[in-house]
Structures are given as structure tokens and as C-alpha cells.
């Protein structure tokens, strides 16, 4: 899957998970920039992404994620 498509789908997922349509999904985006992106929302985000893309991340992969750019790279690798 190419990056624009991944970003496109991520935008929809972010909207569903955060119940907020103003978040701009960019490579630099991370938990620091978004209100309500706590550890639990993070889990919910990861789980929703896994389901939507039909992929599974390992515990260490999830642990290393720093921002959306990392996430997209990981998704790209798997799809």
C-alpha cells in the first residue's frame, strides 16, 4: 500500500478513535500534540489500526513507535 493511501485511511481512523475531525495526520504527529492521546487511547488506536489493515504488530514494534511517521513505515512494511 502506498503512503498517501495509508495516510488517508489513518485520517479516518484517528477521527473514529479520538472522536475529533480536526486532527491533521502528518508524519511528525505524536501523542504530545493531541489532547486525550493517553496510554489507553494509544492502545485503542493501535488495535483499531491492526483491525482496519488486518495486520498485527509485535510488542516491541509498538514500544518503539515515536510518531505517525514510524507507524506508517511499519504499516507499509506489512501491507
Amino acid at each position, binding site marked *: 500500500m502506498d503512503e498517501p493511501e495509508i495516510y488517508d485511511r489513518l485520517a479516518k481512523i484517528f477521527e*473514529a*478513535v479520538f*472522536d475529533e475531525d480536526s486532527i491533521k495526520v502528518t508524519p511528525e504527529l505524536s501523542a504530545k500534540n493531541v489532547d486525550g492521546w493517553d*496510554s*489507553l487511547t494509544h*492502545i*485503542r488506536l493501535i*488495535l*483499531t489500526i491492526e*483491525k482496519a489493515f488486518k495486520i498485527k504488530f*509485535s*510488542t516491541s514494534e*509498538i514500544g518503539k513507535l515515536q510518531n505517525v511517521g514510524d507507524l506508517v513505515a511499519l504499516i507499509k512494511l506489512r501491507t
Partner: protein
Amino acid sequence: MNPLFAELQWLPRAPEEFPERLRALGNSAGPLGRELRALASHALDLNQLTKLAKTIGKARSGGKSLDPLVPFRLAVVSNSTIDMIVPALVASAARHGIAVEVIQAEYDQVAQEALSPDSKVNCSKPDAVLLALDYRALPLQLSLGDAKASSASVQRVTGYLQSLHNGIKTNSDAVCIFQTFAPPVETLFGSLDRAIPGTLRSLIDCINRDLAEFVLGSGDVLLDVAALAETVGLSDWHNLQLWNMAKFSFSDELIPLYADHVARTVAAVRGKSRKALILDLDNTVWGGVIGDDGLEGIQLAQGDARGEAYLAVQRFALDLRQRGIVLAVSSKNSDEVARAPFLKHPEMLLKLDHIAVFQANWNDKATNIQAIAEELSLGLDSMVFLDDNPVERGLVRHLLPQVAVPELPADPAYYARTLAAAGYFEAVTFANEDLKRAGYYQENAKRANLQKQVGGVDAYLASLDMTITFQPFDATGRARIVQLINKSNQYNLTTRRYTDPEVVKAENDPAVFTLQVRLADIFGDNGMISIVICRSGEAGLWEIDTWVMSCRVLGRKVEQMVLREIVEHARMAGIRKLIGAYRPTERNQLVVDHYAKLGFTKVEEDESGSTRWEFLVEDAQPESAPMKVVSHGFASTKKIEPA
């Protein structure tokens, strides 16, 4: 994962406009209970449940009324992370008519919350406390092969659980909802784990049994999580990655299922479980259509795979009746035809004696269900309606949203399981009187009288987005045309049977006007559902030789639209008058008033009950119905379709 359970497949899919409806709800002044319940009554995923819970929370803090949802204060203590479960509980409770307010204890503060009088849980005066514990919360020690030590270990655990009960009872007088424990997947010896005392599996087995016994005596409530986990599969239940990362005691994908089970239990505590099961007959409790296939034709026999599937539905209904669920029947059939299998079919498990109210007629099912509820003096919110036909299910959901109507899978083998999975009849106690309840309703119930029609049928029909398609007979449709002519018994005015060559002859005869009718709706294409053959008699006159319709589309006003189509073609052909005839058989009582209802005038009747009718084409304006009309292939319209 089995989608029946993981995706709550007995519930209809969430509508596309779910977010908009949720937003509208947020802006509404209330009371919001009805719409909340309607929205919650879909198969919602975790994100949708979370959003719904958010809307409920905002409404509550904004002081809006949640009526008619019944308020319930539920405290939850757990040794695992429940932050994602709590919103799911709130939203799922709305599905069961309950406005739950959750008091969430801090993570892993189980004993403290239960035992100290001034804890958050005890101070909040909850109606019930859910002890959402899993086996990792228990002081368990392996004692392989040591019966004495393992029994001591089990006692230590049950003693701990009882002390939680005592603490909560003393400090807040709330009911405890205890969960049984789902054992881990991993074994030490393999199968032997079950037999050897002191293995984790054997310890948890003993604890679950003792806990169930304790709850039965203490007046608390049991939530059988072990059974739930086994139902979906222990390896799907336990998600080890999620436990390690976030201390989730089971898979996130099963949170909607778990939450629904908690919600149905809470609803049962509040007496909101359902009490009656209303059964459709054709293709629900037997295979086939009794009016068309006859006693010998319906599928209902041991040794026949489809027949056995329907027998399983009957057996489950009978077992439910034994525990006190009232059974009723709502079927589109004439009364006599519908009763025949109950009286004469040797393999029927259900007998007329088991049915408290038997409604077989041609009214719409919403009207019938309302009559059944009145007859039983039960509320509509006590009713469950089982029907294989999505249109009937949709109609009842639309007109009587209080009635529970499970979605059913394509294969009848899974009807009973789906009905059971929905948990409509969840009970938290069982008394001897329950055994007699079904009989009690039966004695009191007489046949309901159906005069009143439930309003809004037209609006519902419009919502079906129907398209009716008319064509003359052609080669493509011929096999189905012959089948309809020869198989239809009920909606058949003259019961004239024609062979394939005879149909070909009619197709090619310029003096014969033929019509094949198809109907599609939002649920899909019903295929060809009606056939008409008109023959030119004397000048300016068409005699309706054959008019047949599939009973599957009864009550959809198809016959009105067919008449409109006939009239239109008659006009173009310079016809002034239509002649209709009704020839009675044992099975076509249904259409005795067909022509009267369509505005024909009776001109003849003989002692056999045969009638003749006429209809003046000129100036006639037959009634219309809400559906899109497509008409093609007719020579007079100058449009020739490719063969």
C-alpha cells in the same frame, strides 16, 4: 474468531447514518432514552460503543432526561484495566433498557474497595458491584497431585471471594456480581491437567463450581465468564500481548460481547428480561411453505439435514417453554393450514398445547404481535420475534421497536444458536413457579382479536425502496414462470396449470397478454414473484386467465401495482373491460376477496363459490403504492429488448 459472538451477529448492522444520528441525539433536548436504545440496538464495535457512551455521559451531566431507560448504579472493581470496558458497559446497557452509571474503582484495589467502609465503591451506594476479576487476581498455588493442599487452596480462594461479598454487603448493601474464571490455555500435563488435583485447570474448575454454589445461596448474581470464554475459545479470549502491554484480562475484540453479557445480567436484576417467544412458521419452525408445499412437502424430519435444523429450533423453543418462556405463533397463513402440521405431522415437536396464542392470518405481523402482547397481558418489551424473512423482521423493528427481533443467518442450522446467543431470556434466579409460568399464560390466553391495524405500514413500505419490474413472458423467465404457475397454491385465483409448451404458446400468441413481475427491495432481489395471463375474448375485453403471486411478498401492495400495469396495457390495446374469475380450491381461500379489494364488481357467483368480476378500464385509476416501476420488453411500448 466466531463472528456470531465477536460481532454480535444477532443484532442488525449499525446504519450508515449512525454518526449523524448520534450527533442529533447530542443536540436534542430529550428525553433521550428511546433513541439511545434504538442506536444501541445495533452490532456496535468498540469505537461506536465508546462514542455512544460519551453522548450518554454528556446528556447526563447536562441534566437531560434519559427516560425511559431505568437508572442503575454499577460499581466495577477489577485486577485488570477496565477503562475501555466501562464505556462499552454504559452503551450496551442502553441496548437493554438500562441507564448505567459506572463507578470505577482504581486499578487493582479489589479488597480495599470491598472491605473499607469509606472506599469509593462503598461510599457511592451502588445498586450492584461487578467483581471483574480474572484468575490472575487469585491467591493460587500449584500443588500438583496433592489433593489436600489443593482443596485448601480452593478454600482460601472461595474464602477470599466470600469476604469480598461480606465487605460489600456490610458497607453498602449492594448485590455482588461474581464472575467465574476463564482458565488459561496452557496446560502442564495436557489432558491430565483436568484430572490431577492442584493444576491450574483443576483448581479453577473447583473454584468455579464452589463460587456458583455460593452465589446461589448468598443472593448474589453470577456472570459465567468461564462459559463465555469457552464459547468463543480460550485462545481467542486470552490475548497475552494485551495483558503484558496494558493488563487487559481478555481480548479487546470481545469487549462488545462481554459488555453485552454484563448488560443483560444487570437488566435481568432489574426484571427486564424478556418473557415470550413469538415464532413465525414457514421456513422458521419447518422448512418450506405449508400452504404451497403441503404436509408431505415441508422439511421436518430426522435424517434430513434441513429438517433437523428446524427440529432444533422447535426443541429449543420447547426447552425455553419448560423454563417458563411463553410461546406464541404469528404466521401469514390461513388458520387451518397453519395448524395442520401441529395436528397431523408426526415429526412436529411443538404441539398446539404448547402455544399460548396462535395467530395465523393475513394481517401484518406488527398488528399480530401487538394482539399477542395484549392477549398475554405482557408488554411489547417482553417479546422476542423469530422470523426468517428480513422484510418481516424490518417491519416489526420499524413499527414495534420494543420487540426484540434477532437477525438470522442464511443456514437454519444456526437459528437456535443465534437466538440463544442473543440472551433475551437471561435470568438471575430460578424458582419452581417459573416452571409453571408458560402453562399459566396459556390457560388465560384466548385467541386475540385483530381489528386494529398498527399504523405506519405505508411509511415502512416506502422505506423498503422497492422496484417492481414488468415484462411480457420471455425465454429467460420461462422456467420460473412454469414453476410459479404449477407450484403456487395460495395466491392463485384460478389454479390453472400450464406446461412449458403451453407457456411458449401463450408467449407467442398475439391474442394473449402476459406479464412476469419481479420485485427488488433494500434487502435484495426477490426475483420473479407474480404472473398474469390475459386472453382476448369478445371484442374490447380481456379475461384474466391466470393471476399468481408468491406469498413472500404479501402485504407489499404488489397486486395493486400489477393491476395498474394491466390497465395501462389494456388501454393501449383498446380494451374496455377486464374480467376476473376466482375458482375456489382447498388452498386459495386467501384470494377470495382479491378482486373485491382491487375495485372489481362481482357479476356472477355459483354454488361452488366460483365468482366472476369485471373492471371498467376507461377512467379507472387503480390505487398506487410506494415503489419504482420499470416496464420493458412490451411490443406496444416500441422497445424491443434483446433476447
